[in-house]
Each structure stands twice: as C-alpha cells, then as structure tokens.
C-alpha cells in the first residue's frame, strides 16, 4: 500500500481553525505523515444540509470522495482532521452502501460532473485515528524532545468523531481512550475527563445560544473541577465554540472561567520542540500564556484576526417562502 494519505482539509482549516492547519503542517514531517490534498475539494455541507435534503447533501459530500478516488493511486485512505467533515464523509460512504438507492441517486448526480464513487472503496478516517493506529505511539514518543511534564490537560473529543463508529476503529465509542493515550505519550498529565465525548453545542451558538452556553459551561466547568490547565480537542467546531464563546458564556452565567482550548496537533508540536508561533499559538482568544509557561515556552503575541471578507450587509436578503413552511415553523 502506498504510504500517502488523501487529505480532505475542510473549510474550517482555512479560516477559524488556522492553528490546527498550521500545527498539522508542522508535525507531518517529524512523524512521517504524507498528506496529499484532494484537488478541487468542496465543503462537506457541515451538519445542516443533511437535515434538509439527502441526495443533494450526500452528493455534495461524495463529490469529494469521487475526486479522492481519482487521486487514489494505490492508497485507499482519506484523512479528515475536522470532526464534522470526517463524520459526513464516513456517513456518506456508509449510507450509500447500506441504501443502494441513495447510492444510485448520488452517483446519478455525480455523473453530471463526470464523477463516480463506489461506496466502500475508500477508508474514511480521522486524523487522530491515523496517528494512533498507523503512525503509532512509539513513533510519536521517539520524537518527543520537550515532554509536557506537569501540564494537566483535559482530552476533549467532542461527539462526532468516535460516534457512531461505523468501522469500529475506536476503543469505545462512548468513552474512547485514544486521545488520552496520545497526550500521555507526550508527557502530559491527562485527567479522566468525564465529558470527553459530550457535545460542545455545535451550531446551537447560532440558533439557541442559551442552550449552547449551558453545554459549553458544563465542559469548561468540569475541566476546571478537575483542575485541567488546558482543554485539548480535535475538531474546529469544538475549539471555536469553547474558545470564542467562553466569554459570552461567562457573562451569561456570571462566571469567570478562563480555560484555554487548543488542538492536539499544537500540543504534539510543542512536545516535538517546535516553535509556538509556528504551531498557531496566539490565534486563540482564551490565552495560553500560563499554560505555555508551565512547560517553559514563551507565548507568542496574539494574532489579530483580519476579516477575510468585507463586512456583510447588516441584514441578509429575505428567504423565499416555500410551500409547507407554515407547518414546519
């Protein structure tokens, strides 16, 4: 088998999760991970589209797999770093097999673009799974030059990566230990984080902020109870919710949590002795200075996010009303 992996970054890696993207790029070389980006990939549709209409949603996702097939060249593994992207890709692959009619519909749609995907022909895997099971902890351990001794971390996977675990790749879908093991290998003191697979609120921050704030509070307060100094995650959405909305959550509950949350690749990079700035530190909103000091790393200056686009119109265009909307809403 070819030792390269087909890499599906997903949209977040280019925007909110730049730190993830940068740190991943930095650790690939030391651990010998060869990622080949899928040419002309598109958005996976995140969590909403599937709820609206299956065929277009799955077609959107599967287009990426079809493109990946073209690039396969001996390898069969697609790696996604983002939880939602990973789940969407895996889900599409799974349901196209389980429901042949859906598979046909999707392929009919793809055929319009001259593409085709045979469900089951690719392995869809999360980055963490690849690092643990293919690269191996021995390899990771051999690269550690700055063990994270004394740093108390809360391993937080979020709800999308280990569940529903179609291919039984995780030690336990409810309470997996992969991230714990990785962080221990880096030398960190890993708390037995009870909420490791609980939800961060997802897009509820946009729809029902109060619900999202409660979910964020649970996570942060539990990590705090365990005296974690930092939460470590593997999904851009989780990171953004806990990082960007922690302030608002604090205002909502009149609390004063300051729990930094970073990507596991950033911690790997630190342990490998890489430069904090190179690993995307400084992009987070809840500061990591104290946490970095604990392991003797100078914190880089915070990076001000430059708006990628012109500010949008204050108000968007009104949505056209569809027949049947009355019943739904």
């Amino acid at each position, binding site marked *: 088998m070819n030792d390269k992996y087909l890499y599906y970054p997903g949209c977040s890696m280019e925007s909110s999760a730049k730190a993830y993207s940068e740190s991943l790029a930095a650790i690939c070389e030391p651990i010998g991970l060869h990622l080949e980006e899928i040419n002309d990939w598109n958005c996976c549709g995140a969590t909403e589209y599937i709820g609206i209409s299956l065929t277009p949603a799955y077609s959107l996702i599967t287009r990426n797999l079809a493109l990946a097939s073209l690039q396969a060249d001996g390898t069969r593994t697609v790696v996604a770093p983002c939880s939602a992207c990973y789940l969407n890709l895996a889900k599409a692959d799974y349901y196209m097999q389980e429901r042949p009619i859906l598979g046909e519909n999707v392929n009919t749609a793809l055929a319009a673009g001259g593409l085709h995907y045979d469900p089951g022909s690719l392995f869809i895997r999360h980055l963490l799974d690849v690092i643990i099971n293919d690269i191996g902890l021995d390899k990771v351990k051999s690269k550690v030059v700055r063990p994270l001794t004394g740093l108390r971390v809360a391993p937080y996977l979020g709800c999308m990566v280990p569940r529903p675990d179609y291919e039984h790749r995780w030690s*336990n879908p*409810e*309470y997996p*230990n992969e991230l714990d093991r990785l962080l221990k290998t880096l030398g960190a003191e890993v708390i*037995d984080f*009870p*909420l490791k697979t609980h939800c961060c609120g997802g897009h509820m921050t946009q729809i029902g902020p109060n619900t999202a704030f409660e979910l964020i509070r*649970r996570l942060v*307060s*539990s990590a705090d*109870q365990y005296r974690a100094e930092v939460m470590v995650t593997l999904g851009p959405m989780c990171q953004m919710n806990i990082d960007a909305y922690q302030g608002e959550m604090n205002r909502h509950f009149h609390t004063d949590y300051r729990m930094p949350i970073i990507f596991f690749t950033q911690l790997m990079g630190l342990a490998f002795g890489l430069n904090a700035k190179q690993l995307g530190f400084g992009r987070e909103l809840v500061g990591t200075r104290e946490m970095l000091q604990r392991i003797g790393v100078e914190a880089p200056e915070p990076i001000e996010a430059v708006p990628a686009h012109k500010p949008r119109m204050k108000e968007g265009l009104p949505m056209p009303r569809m027949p049947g909307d009355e019943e739904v809403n």
Partner: protein
Amino acid sequence: MTGPFDSASKSPERIGVYVCHCGTNIAGVVDVAEVRDWTEKRLKGRGVIIARDYKFMCSSLGQEMIEKDIQKLGLTRVVVAACSPHLHEQTFRNACQRGGLNPYLSELVSIREQVSWVHTDKHAATDKAKAVVSGGVERVIKNEPLEPLRVPINEATLVVGGGIAGIQAALEIADAGFPVYLVEREPSIGGHMAQFDKTFPTLDCAACILTPRMVSAGTHRHITLMTWSEVENVSGYVGNFTVTIRKRARYVNTELCTGCGICQEKCPKKVIDQIYEAGMGYRKAVYTPFPQAVPRYPVIDKPNCTYFSKGTCKACEKFCPTNAIDFNQQDELITVQVGNIILATGYDLFNARRIPHYGYGRLANVYTNLEFERLSNAAGPTNGEIVLRDGKTKPKSVGIIHCVGSRDRNYNNYCSAICCMQSLKFAHLVHERTGATVYNFYIDIRTTAKAYDEFYQRVLEEGTLFVRGRVAEVTDAARKPEEEGRLIIQVEDTLAGKQRRIPVDMVILSAGLEPRKDAKETAKLFGISCSADGWYIEKHPKLDPVATMTEGIFIAGCNTGPKDIPNTVSQGAAAAARVLGRIQQKEIFIEPVRASVNQDKCSGCRICNNLCPFNAISFIEDRKVTEINAALCQGCGTCVAACPAGAISGTVFSNEQVLSQIDGLLMLNLEYMKEAPELVAV
C-alpha cells in the same frame, strides 16, 4: 458408463415411501398428496411399490403403518419424508426393526426443516420435496443392513468444575455407588455460590446451604476430589475416555496437613484476592480461599510467595506443626479412565470496564455485583458492612443498574437471567442494612420463577425506587451544586418520558454472565461445540438440555447459558441421572458409522496414516497395508475420502450412497428407461 448409477437397470428392491403431513407443518406448504402420487408413479421403476401420506408419521399409527407394510408387502427398503433425522431417525428405524427389517435399510429425509419451514412458494417447495424423496430413494437402495456397535461403559465418571452444578452431579452419582473424579481449577470447590451472601428469593445464607454439600463431596468415599487441578487431555470415546489431569503443585503435603491454618497466619506476604474476594479483600501467599474451603489444605501461590521469588522466608515451613510444607513438590499428571464426562465449568462475569461510561474502574464508588456480594457478605472484607470505598462511609443513596453488558447489542444480546433477582436482592440488603434510598434502573423486570415475583413485590413495598430506562452514563461531572462530589446517573426515564439526573453515593452494576474465557478451548478439548456467544450447545435445547452432540459428554449449569441456582442444581442432577442410566445399562449402542480398509486394494501408500485424530489408523509394517481399528474410529470419513486407491470404505455414508443420492436429488433416476444418450457436445 461411469458412476454407480446404472441408468439402464431397475432396482431390485421393494421400497415403501411415507410422506408425513406433520399436521400442517409440512402439508401447509408442500402438497404431500402430490408428492405421494408422483413418487408412486415416477419412482416405480426404482423399486417404489408403495407410497403413502399420513398426518403424523411419528405417531404410533404412522409407525404401525410402516410395520404392517414391511410384513404384508415384503418391503426391503423404507423411506420416510418428514422431519430432520436428528429428531426421528431412531423412531423410524425402530419401527422398521419391529416390522422385521434391518433398521439401517431405512432413510428419513427432511422435508420439514429443509423444505416446508424454509420455503414459501408452494409449487417450488413441492418440487423440492420430490427431489428430496427421490434422493432418499436412490440412497436407500444402496443402504446396507448393519448392526449398531455395542460399547461397554466404564463405571467411573469425570465431573469438571466444582461449583454447585458439579458438586450436585458428583454427589448424585457417588450416592448411587459409582466412582466420580471431581476436578476443580481453584484450591477449593464451591464456585461462585461460595462467594455469595444471601440467595434469592428466600434469602437463606449461601454458605449455610452450600457448605454441607461441599463437605459431603469432599468426604464421599466414591468421590476422588482433585482441586488445584485441570484437565489437560481427553482421548477415547463414550464409555471409555482416557483423561489426563494436571494436579498442580500445592507445595503442601496433604497427607500431613491438618488444615490448622498456622501457615496462613504466619505468612508475611499479603496479596489482593482477585478470585474469591473479587479484588475486595486480601489473602496470604499461602492460603485457603475461605474458611469453609474443601479441601481444607492451603496452597502456596508460587508467583507471590516470597521464598519462591526471593529465595528466603519459609515462614510457613518453620511454623508448620506437621512439616507439611514441601517447596519441592512438582505438578503431577494423573491419568484416569472414565465412561462419561460431565462439564460444569460455570461462567465468568462480564467485565464492566468494557463500558467505560459506567465508570467502573474509574469512579471509586462504582461496584460490580460480585464486589457487592463480598461487601455484603458477613464473612467478607467489611464483615457485611455496606460502605463506600473509603471503608467507613455508609451510602445514603444507591443506584443499581440492571443489564450491564446484557441485552445490549454492543456487548451481549442475551438476557443474563439472574440480574433482576440479584439486583432486587441487593436493593433489599442495602435498604435493610443502611436505610439508604435505593434506585433500580431496569429495562424489564423478569421474575419468572417460583416465589420470585413475590420477592419483587416485597422490595417494591420496602420503598425501593424503580426507574425504567437504560442508563446513559454514570459520571462525576456535576452540573449543580447538589451533584458535586457524588455519582450522577444520567438516564431516560421512559415511563415519565424525560431525562433524569439522579445523584447517588454508590452505584452497583449488575454485570451479566459470560462464558468462561477459555470456554472455546475447553469445548475443543472435550470435542463439543459452542454457540457464537460461547455457550455450550445442548443436544436439543428443550428435549435434551444436558447432553451434547458428543456421546458421553454432558453439560450442566451456567456453561450452557445464564441460570439461577435452582436451575443449575437441577441440571447437575439431570446430567447425573443421564450418566447413571448409562452406567446401569453397562453398555450403549452407537451408530455403526465406521471406516474399513479393503486390504487387497490397499497398496500401503500411507496417505491416510496421519489423518485420524483418534489414532484409529495403523500401518502393518510386515504386510505393508493399513488397518482401521473399528473401536477407535469415530466415523468422520476423512480417510475414506482421502484414499487414493479407493481402498477405504465407510458404512452409512458410503460413496455409493452419496453418489446415488446426488443422482436422486438431481432426478437422474427419472431417465432410467432411456437409451444411453448420444454423447455429442452441445
């Protein structure tokens, strides 16, 4: 032309074919009358002189029909198309015998299990039934008259496993006056039952009812008790098994030991007792697992013994008043001859660590059921005090979670049968001893046996709270101040229709029962089969639940599936009854399925010599031919199929029988009257 089926000749046999309706079981799908008509007409040339259909062929009237036809019509072969031969082959063979026909000149072909019950298209099913009958007719023509083999039965019996099932079985046989070898892996017999405090539903103390049985088994003049021992090899066959048992070194001379216990007192090495105390208490490196152990002699746990690991200590030896300690003792291999074997190997507990979100092994005050048994046991590590892991705090509220690892497609699909009653028992004990609030989280309450539901009512009346729903998780992540420092059980209360978070101090997981870790190896050792779950398979799940498909090997207790104590004891006794029946008959008849070598054809190529796992095949050097010992042959037919010279033949499943059956199934017999076909390619 090639082949045993000579298409130009007609069969000289006089064959009777009987098609069973089995009520509507067969007749509901297969047109039995049509099968009968067709057989009579189309298979006439194959020797079928009579074909009948009847409501229930296995009824006495059905059997008499066959008997009469044999006598009146002079039948030389009989084919019955009905159910599986595993069910009624013997029935119809007996009928033939009563009619004066050698029983092996009959065939039972299955048109129920293999036709009417599995097919829906009536036309296709009827066609298939015809093919199956035709296969049976062709086969039966080639059947040979045979006599069943008589095998003498050795009076001695091996019982493997010294839990309550094995003890019961051993006592029943020994009381009847026949020798028993009772082999137990642990230092003492008693099994899981010895670990329990109270037994549901009567709440009598387990030790009080078990200990007398243990003592009887330990002292019975017909029982040879071998503890700290394991069966290593089994050879032979029903009536005459040769069993090799490894008697592990105890490092205690049992001739000299009086069981005074001084060695245990003096031993400086404390070890967590993972077996008997379920990890809740300690024992010494020299120990008897519990005070009532049978036999009372201790064993030295070699890996933990200071002398064995460091070379000095010998405290036990110094203080032993009878010089019974012997550090030079070696394992002994003992070979015994037995006629029958009863396996009562018990169960293992589901490993609750496999459900990490229930917190066992992570959260201190989550206990397993076996741990709680020790905790509540008056002879246990806390003298029966129900306390938290700190060893002193009494819980104010306790949650008991049912079906842990059972009825769960992620772990085991089956119901572990005992957990409901066990959990109710726990609820009662907690309530009685601590006054704590008790919650039971259940899917369904299953209290089906005698006096069980009454016990459930009693526990309800005591005020135990029942929440119907599968627990999502047990966590220490508090959301509210009142949850802090406690275990929170997150559950969907399906009766109230809402999510609940119930903070408690202690959680007891009613972990399910699983087959022994080595159940598969044990099954292999004794030549029996396991289901996909790993439970042993009964010869018939309803009608023959203690026999296996291997003659002479019986099973009892939880190794066939979860059972409560009354059922386990019944099975031990039932297995014993089966064995006693055989011993008293002094011999049994077994199927004459055997291979033999035609020595004129054998060229001594020795291809077959290595193929028999039962060592039935031997080579006679001076004559350069191979011979098969009919007594050792088990009839698998592997050598028959392997002989390159065609010199080995096998009874009951001969080449001629199988090849003819193929012809019959493919309906080639219908061509018998045609000229030899012109051999031109298509």
